[in-house]
């Protein structure tokens, strides 16, 4: 098992570095000079050059990258050009919002997805199944920002059940937190729950055809046990695999959702930082997302190996 984890760990390294290298190059090769922007129109050439030197912008590009890599390993991500504070102090508060949003959204998606998929597979080809399949196709095609706006219109503007926008951290009380996180998480989770519904359904249908299920039934095991214990464990493997992709998708989708609901999360921070050419914050944000995803994917690989022992011994 340890060897398996080690192998997986090596495989996730590119998933951390590829996005980082891309963003790093993109930022450095783009027009616009952060030193000039920080100092404004009044700055002299000397002042700009001095600041460029201070920020390391006068070094060749590979040197800047190496310096920055060194920074990552020593947990020194540089100072935000805009906030004039270390990036590492800025990111956690934003990251926590996005992580909570993604976590709640993912939980909703899994609950809805697995339940609906299970219901559909138990009612194969009857109206219930068709209804669920139809909803899933519709759900996959819902643009989440549009769905978010519809949710705001129905539940916040018309019914007034939830606030229109804003954020209460969990420390403000669970109810206050839930009130501000529920709609965004629902909007973010809807597509993924539709995907998981389809996945769970087709994977259940596959598993129910397996001989070992027939054997279990033939031996007179109660249907509850056959489905709940034998079928679901195997059927959930493909669903677990998509959780990683879903989380990645949701961390991306969080950008629009955070803007609609005015949540102070990573996505909004990124868009704002990019607008200000605040390089260290953008890189720090991308690094955070990449790290979170890498850890999540590693976790999923481990769950995967737990669910299906064959994988461990490959």
């Amino acid at each position, binding site marked *: 098992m340890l060897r398996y984890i080690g192998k997986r760990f090596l495989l996730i390294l590119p*998933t951390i570095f*590829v996005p980082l290298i891309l963003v790093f190059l*993109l930022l450095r090769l783009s027009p616009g000079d952060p030193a000039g922007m920080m100092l404004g129109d009044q700055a002299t050439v000397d002042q700009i050059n001095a600041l460029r030197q201070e920020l390391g912008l006068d070094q060749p590009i590979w040197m800047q990258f190496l310096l920055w890599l060194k920074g990552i390993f020593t947990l020194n991500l540089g100072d935000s050009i805009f906030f004039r504070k270390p990036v590492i102090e800025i990111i956690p508060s934003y990251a926590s919002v996005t992580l909570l949003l993604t976590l709640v959204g993912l939980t909703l998606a899994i609950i809805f997805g697995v339940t609906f998929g299970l219901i559909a597979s138990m009612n194969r080809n009857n109206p219930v199944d068709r209804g669920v399949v139809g909803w899933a*196709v519709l759900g996959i*095609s819902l643009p989440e920002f549009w769905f978010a706006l*519809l949710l705001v219109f129905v539940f916040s503007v018309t019914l007034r059940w939830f606030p229109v926008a804003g954020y209460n951290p969990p420390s403000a009380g669970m109810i206050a937190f839930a009130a501000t996180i529920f709609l965004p998480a629902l909007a973010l989770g809807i597509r993924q729950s539709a995907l998981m519904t389809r996945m769970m359904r*087709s994977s259940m249908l596959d598993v129910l055809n397996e001989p070992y299920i027939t054997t279990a039934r033939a031996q007179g095991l109660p249907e509850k046990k056959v489905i709940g214990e034998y079928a679901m464990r195997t059927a959930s493997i493909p669903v677990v695999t998509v959780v990683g992709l879903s989380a990645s998708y949701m961390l991306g989708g969080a*950008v629009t959702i955070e803007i609609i609901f005015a949540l102070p999360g990573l996505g909004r921070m990124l868009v704002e930082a990019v607008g200000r050419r605040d390089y260290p914050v953008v890189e720090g944000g991308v690094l955070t997302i990449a790290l979170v995803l890498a850890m999540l994917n590693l976790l999923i690989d481990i769950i995967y190996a737990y669910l299906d022992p064959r994988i461990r011994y490959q």
Partner: protein
Amino acid sequence: MTALDNSASEALPSGDGSNPVTANKNVWERLIGNPTAVFSITVLLLITLSAVLAPIIAPGNPMRVNPVHRFTPPGAEYLFGTDNLGRDMFKMVMWGGRTSLMVGLIVTGISMSIAIVLGSISGFYRQVDVVLMRFVDGLMSFPGIVLAVAAAAILGPSVSTVIVSLSVVLIAPSLRIVRGQVLVVRELQMIEAARSVGVPTLRLFTKYILPAVMSPILVQASFIFSAAVLGEAGLSFIGVGIGPNELSWGNALTEARNYIAKAPWIVFFPGLALMFTILALNLLGDSLRDILDPRLARRR
């Protein structure tokens, strides 16, 4: 895989490799017989027609501001109502579709072409494959939209920026699919036979490998199209997309969210058009897959 084996085995007896023409005819006939496919093609045709014919159906500048008639609810005069600047929402939806569909089409074309070329190379040359696949892994697991946001915002909002950034982001999943198919096809006997009689590599690709991997590429193209349309809308919606002077469904929604209580129709119609487009593309992809890959179809 079964679809592949089928197309390959169908191809073998004909002697001169596969015959994509008869294969396509077959696909088309089966598409027409599939109600989901017919529905999705009809919807797509309607949306495309209304976008192409926008100057005839909804003549006049869709961006024309008319403050006297702002926030007019949908009715006889303004079918979809007017927005906060008094612009005719019907015109905006019709004209917006032009940009949205065009961006989707171009992005699909670019990213699929690159994916086909790189995927074939990756599937054929082991050394390239190792590097390229690690790169694809990196791109795949990272939210593409975040990279697109960064790219679009850094390069400045414009139609070409959106096309470039979405194309790059959407290469990875298609590349992986093409590569996987090429890996299977290259082991087929017909390829071995072609190689042993000295068919040049380029000809091997265009004549034998490409036709054999075409089905998954077709399926993938419709999903990439829908991802591109959705991506453009998302980027434009948060203001890092095609820029304020252009019109697309996503752009039409940007301002709308501020007036959702007062004029919900501004939000409703562009989003509905967007959703129908994506729905139709997804359904088309699904039915194409059902038709081209019987193994998966049996599962449903």
